[in-house]
């Protein structure tokens, strides 16, 4: 410490706040703030998206039902053919007994609007399933219509002037009487999962879409998994380095980035138009999806194969295994966790893919679940598309609920993928 005075002078300039330094630190702080703002924006968008969809979906968790005592007179139903009876009349009689004051045709129509349109068929099915009910008076529970459902769940504001709501004062009065008599219940909306599609929101469910998506994903897996692994094994383990394999490689990378709708055009032109496969069928959807998933699986498999150290291959070759045995017995099993992870992620993408399925007609209106993969069907995302396009209020919450179901599947698939990656992760 030779020159103390010099040192103090020197430290003086170090401590002195300098305008330009302040400016530089301000710029630094600004950049940091931009970063925080960007992340906050992105994450709040995520929160708003998930939040609004879940909030909108909540009303669809329950379905408003009404219970009426329906008389099933023995003389009105032919025991040998219970299907032929007029259940509409039995229901109408029941309703008239409840509301004796309602008699004009217009009022009767308005009254019926509170209940689902298909109640008569549900009553019929109940009787057909259990003919012993004939001649008795039964408790018949069935869904309210969309407007009844909305009214019960508060989706319709009764304080609005009547001309601004889709339900008039009479209808509200009739509904209130049902509530007073304790006829209204709101059980869990199991129809949402177990019913097929319908024009009426209170009856529409995802069954057809779930079955269709299952078939399509099954085909997608059966085709893309073996083909994808084979292609990747060839390119990674066997292929000579030449222009052909380079071409295949570039081609696969580009294929992974081709817009999905183009695959839909391919499916339309080749599978439907050229090969004459059935329109709207899950098999075609599955084939189109498998072509889209193929690059993902190939790329994931190649990465997994690359991660297996060469020493394993040398060891196998060293004990006299053929190249094919080396790959089949050692390399592929070691790479399998990585391959499966990639496959699940690819299938999850395929499950959410909509555009190509629209083009091959999987947005058809079909009111039954498909019996096989050759029957017309919808899929989960196309069902969402159909419902999102429907004007009835009830479909808004059902669309959201269907999205929650779709997201639920995706979360599960990704969770499995992440679990597998963690569980089988191997450090060489």
């Amino acid at each position, binding site marked *: 410490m030779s020159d103390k005075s010099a040192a103090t002078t020197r430290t003086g300039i170090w401590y002195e706040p300098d305008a330009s330094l302040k400016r*530089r630190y301000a710029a*630094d702080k*600004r*950049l*940091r703030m*931009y*970063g925080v703002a*960007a*992340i906050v924006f*992105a*994450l709040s*968008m*995520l929160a708003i*998206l998930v939040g*609004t*969809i879940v909030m909108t979906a909540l009303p669809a968790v329950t379905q408003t039902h009404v219970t009426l005592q329906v008389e099933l007179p023995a003389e009105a139903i032919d025991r040998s053919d219970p299907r032929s009876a007029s259940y509409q009349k039995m229901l109408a009689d029941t309703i008239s007994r409840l509301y004796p004051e309602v008699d004009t045709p217009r009022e009767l129509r308005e009254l019926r609007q509170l209940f689902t349109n298909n109640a008569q068929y549900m009553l019929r099915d109940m009787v057909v399933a259990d003919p012993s009910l004939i001649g008795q008076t039964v408790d018949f529970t069935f869904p309210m219509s969309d407007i009844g459902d909305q009214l019960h769940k508060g989706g319709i504001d009764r304080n609005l002037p009547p001309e601004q709501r889709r339900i008039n004062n009479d209808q509200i009065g009739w509904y209130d009487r049902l509530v007073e008599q304790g006829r209204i219940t709101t059980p869990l909306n199991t129809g949402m999962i177990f019913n097929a599609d319908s024009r009426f929101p209170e009856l529409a469910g995802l069954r057809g879409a779930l079955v269709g998506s299952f078939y399509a994903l099954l085909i997608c897996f059966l085709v893309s998994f073996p*083909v994808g692994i*084979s*292609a990747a094994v*060839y390119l990674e383990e*066997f292929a000579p380095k030449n222009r052909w394999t380079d*071409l*295949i490689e570039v081609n696969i990378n*580009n*294929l992974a*980035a*081709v*817009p*999905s*709708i*183009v*695959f839909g*055009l*391919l499916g*339309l*032109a*080749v599978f439907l*138009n050229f*090969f004459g496969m059935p329109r709207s069928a899950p098999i075609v959807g599955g084939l189109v999806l498998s072509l889209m998933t*193929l690059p993902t699986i190939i790329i994931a498999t190649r990465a997994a194969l690359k991660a297996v150290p060469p020493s394993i291959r040398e060891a196998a070759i060293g004990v006299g295994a*053929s*190249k*094919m045995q080396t790959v089949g017995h050692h390399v592929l099993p070691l790479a399998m966790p990585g391959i499966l992870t990639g496959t699940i992620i690819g299938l999850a993408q395929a499950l*959410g893919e*909509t*555009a190509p399925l*629209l*083009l091959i*007609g999987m*947005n058809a209106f079909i009111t039954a679940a498909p019996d096989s993969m050759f029957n017309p069907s919808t899929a989960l*995302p196309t069902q*969402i*598309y159909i419902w*999102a396009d429907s004007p009835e209020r009830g479909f*808004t919450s059902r669309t*959201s609920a269907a*999205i929650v179901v*779709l*997201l639920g599947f*995706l979360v599960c698939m990704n969770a499995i993928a992440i679990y597998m990656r963690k569980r089988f992760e191997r450090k060489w």
Partner: protein
Amino acid sequence: MSATTLLAIVLTLSLIGYLWGRANAAALKKSGIGMHSIPAYHGYFVALSCGIPAFLLVLVWIAAESTVIDRLILAGLPSYVTDGIEGSRMSLILSEIKSVAGGRIFGTPDQAILDAAARYNVLRGTASLAMVVCALAAAIAGMAFAGSRLSAEFRARNSVDGIIRWGLIVCSILAILTTLGIILSLVIESLAFFSRVPVLSFLFGMEWSPQTAMRADQVAAEGAFGAVPVFWGTIFISAIAMFVALPVGLFSAIYLVEYANGTVRSLVKPLLEILAGIPTIVYGFFAILTVAPFIREWGVAMGLSVASNSALAAGGVMGIMLIPFISSFSDDAISAVPQSLRDGAYALGATKAETVRQVLLPAALPGIVGGVLLAVSRAIGETMIVVMAAGLTATLTANPLEGVTTVTVQIVTLLIGDTEFDSPKTLAAFGLGLVLFLSTLALNVVALQVVKRYRERYE
């Protein structure tokens, strides 16, 4: 017999072939002869020789059968039915024949149709019987051939390896076939379209109204298929999307790589990835459920008129979807800049912001640009968000509060519910598809090259 049963039989035959081949070889071995390959490989060889030809035969048969039968039926129709009829009418006749053949008879069909329907049923019966016979014959012939080759010197292992290797090659070629299929189907249908609507008036025409062009007299009407407004809408919405995604994605990547600590990074990165995993149909519904009404209310409050399907809503939501895309590419690119460059800048007394702005970003630029190009290609090809949230009418406007339409929206609306393959309306979709495919392909090729070069530079 259904194809599934047939395939099951072929599979069983293969299994029998395997056991037979292995047993034969084992017997040889027992007799004390030195074998080249172990018995199991002889079994595999027989099984593959039996199963593969039969399986391929069934596949080809199924693929070709319906087309061949259709041709035969149409060729067999008397000339008074087919004369002067082409394309769509022909396929109508065909479907009538098929529904009659299936027992669904509406009205009183022509006698020729009834005959054709009867012939159709006969042909189908013959065809499926022939398929079974041929497939079984192929399987048994394969098995016999393989069995005849079994001997001590026979290199079963090498043959099996060879067969599998060919299988692998065929699978990798499938990727090329997919691309080829895309190109061929787009080009063929587009050529049919351009034979009706001149290429130039498609590419440079200023008016797009395909719906009105359905009437026969308007088919080739000049200007009805001018795609410029559609291209403009696509570019406009993509630009809005990038306007949202680029700054948000880039700034969050900078923050995550250079400023955030490990905990924040490990929390925020997966959350951003979730945005990338949400299906686009969900974004589309989000746009019409939340964003579009919000923008509308906001516009009304400001005294502006906002279309319900404004470009701003569609583009904005698409931008949110692209955020993780940009951020993960930028993240990779910035992380890939060697630590030594950071050290160099810090050692000169640069602040973090100065290091980022003047050293890291310029160095990472190629990687970021590659990611941005891929994101643009994504935006152009994105379908569901715009189908749900953007407009249907093609307008040339630069006002983000008005509705515009995009290439993908037009493809979907032109093709939904319409399977006629020879109306210009349908074919126009393939013309648009070709343009879409080529432009995204160009972007992808350039982007992948840029990213690859960049990686090589820092590896």
